[in-house]
């Protein structure tokens, strides 16, 4: 088969749009025009330091730059305060209006919620979980600080076009099963380097069954398998999501039927159940049913982070916690991911449910994902979190045990005092 008649994957199509070429192929080295960049207060300060070494004064396009203060909020140390101050000064100097200060929310959620990212874009940010934005049909990937400094100066970046793994999904998600569980299922299958350097594309009749919140959670965690990017084709769910923000003008790209994929993984969503990753790797996955039998007592439970702090997660937690109490000896932290989401949860009475249950409700931030000013663990303590990583010392003490699960599993486990299958807790309504 000649090269010219082989179709393109969605990632190849988006990347081709960012170049002067009609087509790009997996393995090509390309020079891409970047549509959107974001940096935050963990890697932003180093980015600005590196930018100052370049022979330019201004960023290439201030309207395409987003800056977020979300990791060390409110300024937790003098050094954090200096970093935040530096970022504010830079934004002012450069005329960067897309600046989200302390308390506005988690960067990846803000990028989507405020309509910065649309289908067909090339979006890079100084955070590994930038892949989250692939849920909206963009090519989105994480880069380091020096590379970001270079992009800020030029608006361009080189990529090797990745091969694509096709995830073909059928069936539908059952009660208590979310995008997080699809991600944990994939991690269980391929391991933490199974998607290294690869694009992951979600296709099949079941994509229409997966909410935008679950898509973001799923794309987010593909990074834990090493993916360069993860992407959903824009569909009715994407259009509805963007319509609500008044966004209608964007390319609708879809992969060609004869596109060449590295391999295909089939998933019947109907077969999935709530899954939990054990310490100390996101690919050490068992079913919640199996873990429940092991009687894993917990000291802390966390609902939040860019993996699972969205409305779907907060709402599921509220359904479980309504009229219940967090078990003695457990501290449950709930961190809605953005200010509008926090207000919605407040208006719908969900925050009252959490406070009455004995949970701790935080302002929007990244905090307990990596014990950034909250959620640190002692040695020999155990935590279950909706976060993406359970590496050694991720939450402080190296012997603290971290389990990963969906928001319903975390909420139900907080009530039980040990890790449980959440499905019986969701039925009681």
């Amino acid at each position, binding site marked *: 088969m000649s090269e010219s008649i082989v179709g393109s994957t969605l990632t190849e199509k988006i990347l081709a749009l960012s170049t002067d070429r009609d087509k790009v192929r997996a393995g090509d080295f390309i020079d891409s025009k970047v549509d959107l960049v974001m940096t935050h207060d963990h890697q932003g300060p180093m980015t600005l330091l590196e930018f100052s070494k370049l022979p330019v004064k201004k960023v290439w396009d201030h309207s395409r730059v987003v800056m977020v203060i979300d990791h060390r909020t409110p300024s937790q140390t003098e050094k954090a305060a200096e970093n935040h101050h530096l970022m504010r000064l830079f934004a002012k100097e450069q005329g960067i209006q897309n600046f989200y200060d302390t308390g506005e929310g988690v960067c990846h959620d803000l990028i989507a919620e405020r309509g910065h990212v649309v289908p067909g874009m090339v979006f890079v940010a100084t955070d*590994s979980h930038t892949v989250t934005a692939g849920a909206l049909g963009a090519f989105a990937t994480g880069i*380091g600080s020096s590379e970001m400094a270079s992009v800020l100066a030029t608006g361009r970046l080189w990529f090797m076009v990745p091969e694509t793994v096709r995830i073909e999904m059928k069936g539908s998600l059952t009660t208590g099963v979310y995008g997080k569980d699809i991600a944990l299922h994939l991690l269980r299958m391929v391991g933490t380097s199974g998607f290294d350097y690869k694009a992951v594309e979600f296709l099949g009749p079941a994509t229409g069954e997966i909410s935008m919140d679950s898509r973001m959670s799923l794309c987010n965690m593909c990074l834990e398998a090493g993916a360069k990017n993860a992407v959903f084709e824009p569909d009715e769910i994407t259009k509805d999501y963007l319509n609500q923000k008044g966004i209608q003008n964007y390319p609708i790209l879809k992969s060609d039927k004869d596109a060449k994929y590295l391999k295909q993984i089939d998933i019947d969503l109907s077969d999935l159940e709530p899954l939990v990753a054990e310490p100390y790797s996101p690919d050490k996955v068992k079913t919640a049913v199996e873990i429940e039998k092991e009687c894993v007592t917990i000291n802390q439970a966390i609902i939040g982070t860019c993996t699972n702090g969205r409305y779907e997660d907060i709402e599921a937690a509220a359904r479980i916690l309504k009229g219940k109490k967090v078990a003695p000896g457990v501290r449950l932290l709930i961190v809605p991911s953005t200010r509008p989401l926090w207000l919605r949860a407040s208006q719908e009475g969900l925050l009252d449910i959490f406070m009455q249950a004995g949970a701790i409700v935080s302002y929007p931030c990244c905090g307990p994902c990596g014990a950034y000013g909250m959620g640190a663990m002692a040695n020999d303590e155990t935590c279950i979190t909706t976060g993406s990583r359970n590496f050694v*010392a991720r939450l402080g003490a190296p012997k603290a045990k971290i389990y990963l699960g969906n928001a319903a599993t975390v909420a139900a486990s907080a009530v039980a005092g040990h890790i449980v299958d959440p499905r019986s807790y969701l039925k009681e309504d």
Partner: protein
Amino acid sequence: MGTNYSGRVWLLSDGVDTGQLIPGQYLPITDPYELAHHALEAVRPEFTAGVQQGDIIVAGKNFGCGSSREHAAKALKFAGISVVLAESFARIFFRNAFNIGMAAIPLPGITKIVSEGDRLEVSLAEGKVKNLTTGVEISFAQLPPVMVRILESGGIIPYTSDKLKAGCGDSVG
């Protein structure tokens, strides 16, 4: 340019994530020498006191997985590490290493021919690693030309500076 390296080996396991290379609590730090004081402190507490300029890290699979923090690559480089050889790399660490002017070479099989403390000689141009302690040699695939150019410039900041001064916007060429 220093595309040949010679140094003593620190041998690390599979799956060394960026949190092990530099714990999250140090991310507000931007001074690379200060970061270097905390490199690998949770998993190899003897590293920062024992590392010598030019030392080489040899590691297992998926080295540098996890966060995009450039702090991880900088902590190693400014501690004195000249080059990292690993069975495989997670992609952001791999790019970050070149972007700060430190070579990272994927080399399946390397952990089988190297022990802690061995002396290695690495030639980027020839694509060869020689274990001077045992005499065993192993070859590696050519690195992508754009990455070699970035490395030879001393990292992406000098690389982009040169391009900007020359009025060339293409990031690959």
